[in-house]
């Protein structure tokens, strides 16, 4: 397991470490996988992309692990992915991201834009209006996500009131707030990343900017609604495949089990659940491959299209074409007191875009990342 236990991202990723540990302990207590115990090799990647590269080489070459659970930021994933490809490994990326990775060496359990935006944006446009403004972090995640927003707004007959890309590390937003007020959007999509950019919400609330906000990153990762003083995040709508407030029975049991093992966990986020699920999916694949941990044997199982499980969020399945996962998507609304309510949910939302665009890992493995403006070659 290569996850950040220190550095900038630790806040959102400690839960992923715990999720994998919890699933591993449960599986080992129940007799392991196909009679063998799971052994975890854990390195702290320190929120540092070069650490990912070093440790990815080390686990694949020296420790000779069967599978790697790795990565939070897209930059870290793109840093280690060539190494997984080169050394012929198998990596689970258990994180929501900007989508488009078509790589047979990767299994992605996190949500992708078509799952989070094709639900969120039409819903918000229907409810609040069709004039949409986007502010996004200026790197691959923000740029590609903003492209998704732009396309979905257009498909649904809306217009872009404006778009601003903000360099990582910027913490002062007076001018951004004023530009948004000037454009008078009905809906504001915030794709801000990192602790510095999170200051936006407090500053916007202080300037009394009350445009309904939508996001694919907040709440579900860094639990801003728990950390910020209400009501700075009020009127924020987030699509997430799971958070600890999800009110179904399976989730409540999951949260209880988690707190029994990690009593001081401040928050269990969506990536923690994705990480937990990933270990069980891995178990299922190995058992169905008669105990083989070879990647090609596991991929033959995935190709059957029925690697599914009942997760805390609901039923999830791995899509054979893209090796991404279907999700139940919950619309979480942050209320004035920062409690969460769920005005809507969509079950079984598939990661359809890669497959529709022409990525089919059952036939061909391009080891590439695509975007809507740079789709797979036909």
């Amino acid at each position: 397991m290569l996850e950040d236990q220190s550095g900038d991202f630790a806040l959102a990723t400690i839960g992923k470490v715990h999720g994998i540990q919890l699933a591993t302990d449960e599986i080992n207590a129940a007799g392991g996988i196909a009679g063998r115990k799971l052994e975890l090799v854990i390195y702290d990647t320190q929120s540092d992309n070069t650490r990912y590269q070093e440790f990815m080489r080390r686990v694949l070459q020296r420790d000779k692990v069967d599978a790697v659970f790795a990565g939070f930021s897209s930059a870290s994933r793109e840093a280690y992915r060539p190494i997984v490809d080169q050394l012929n490994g198998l990596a689970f990326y258990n994180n929501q991201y900007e989508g488009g990775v078509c790589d047979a060496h990767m299994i992605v359990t996190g949500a992708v834009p078509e799952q989070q935006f094709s639900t969120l944006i039409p819903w918000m446009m229907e409810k609040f209006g069709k004039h949409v403004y986007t502010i996004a972090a200026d790197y691959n995640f923000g740029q590609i996500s903003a492209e998704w927003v732009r396309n979905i707004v257009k498909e649904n007959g809306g217009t872009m009131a404006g778009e601003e890309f903000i360099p990582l590390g910027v913490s002062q937003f007076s001018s951004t707030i004023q530009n948004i007020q000037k454009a008078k959007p009905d809906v504001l999509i915030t794709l801000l990343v990192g602790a510095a950019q999170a200051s936006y919400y407090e500053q916007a609330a202080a300037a009394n900017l009350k445009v309904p906000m939508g996001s694919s990153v907040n709440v579900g990762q860094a639990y801003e609604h728990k950390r910020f003083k209400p009501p700075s995040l009020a009127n924020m709508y987030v699509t997430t495949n799971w958070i600890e407030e999800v009110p179904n029975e399976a989730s409540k049991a999951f949260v209880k089990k988690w707190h029994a093992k990690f009593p001081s966990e401040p928050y269990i986020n969506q990536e923690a659940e994705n990480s937990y699920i990933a270990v069980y999916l891995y178990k299922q694949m190995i058992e169905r491959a008669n105990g083989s941990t070879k990647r090609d044997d596991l991929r033959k199982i995935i190709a059957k299209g029925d690697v599914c499980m009942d997760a805390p969020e609901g039923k999830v399945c791995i899509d054979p074409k893209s090796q991404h996962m279907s999700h139940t998507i919950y619309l979480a609304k942050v209320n004035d007191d920062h409690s969460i309510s769920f005005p809507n949910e969509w079950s079984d939302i598939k990661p359809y875009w890669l497959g529709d665009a022409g990525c089919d890992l059952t036939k061909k493995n391009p080891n590439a990342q695509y975007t809507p403006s740079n789709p797979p070659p036909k």
Partner: protein
Amino acid sequence: MFDTAFGFLYQFGDACAFLVLCAAGLAVIFGMMGVINLAHGEFIMCGAYVTSAAARAGVPLGFAIACGALAAGLAGVVLERLIIHRLYERPLDTIVATWGISLIVSQGTLIVLGPSMGAVGTPFGSVVVGGYSYSVYRFVLMAAAALILLALYVLFTRTRFGELARATIQVPHMAQALGINTGLIYTATFGIGAALAGATGGLYAPTMTLVPTMGSQFIIEAFVTVVVGGGDVFLGTAPAGVFLGFIKATMTTWEGQLAGQIGLLVAVIIVIRVLPRGVSGLLLRERA
């Protein structure tokens, strides 16, 4: 028309306030004393954390900020006595030492206090001026920046301490020969710089997410302003803040945050090429 003009003035004031407050402590420690203090951001973080802790314990915000400044100032004094005062003759080594301190402090804070600190919430609400609403607290920040500059000016040019400090830093052995306790003056001056950084942290604490690495959000602006300003605390920082604030506000209003950042850095490169001793070097040329 009035809307746009007021909006621009507000952006301009806001950018100036941020630059000046970022730089205030560093102007003393780096601009005046010549210590390249890479731990400047950690003093700011210290001030912000103490302010937040005090405010959440029920202390009124004004006093909480004073607590933050005091705590950072004390930390500065301790640090100067333990480490920095051994390195005045070795400016390059101070870079490594203060960088090390900065890493230790930010990672140490992460380990001891966890990845984030509770927020305070911005006071004073908002005000509507011609179609736009503004946070009242940002005007407080602008006033605070002006006040701090004024206080620095008075302290270093109109008081006995300021005179001794300038004498000590200009020609240390001469000052010592005249009976000045230069060690004490150095410690006090460094402490004042650290306290100013703490005050900046305290002032911005209500508007930001408090994390152990928050110092890095200030440090570029701080160094940029001090380098453009040059050696004089008041005559450097004030015009540098106004000049860079104007460029940043203009570029950001015109093309967004990215253009603002680029404009700021390009302006700095041009200034240090044309004026190696900064704005105050230019202003003080006749007198030198």
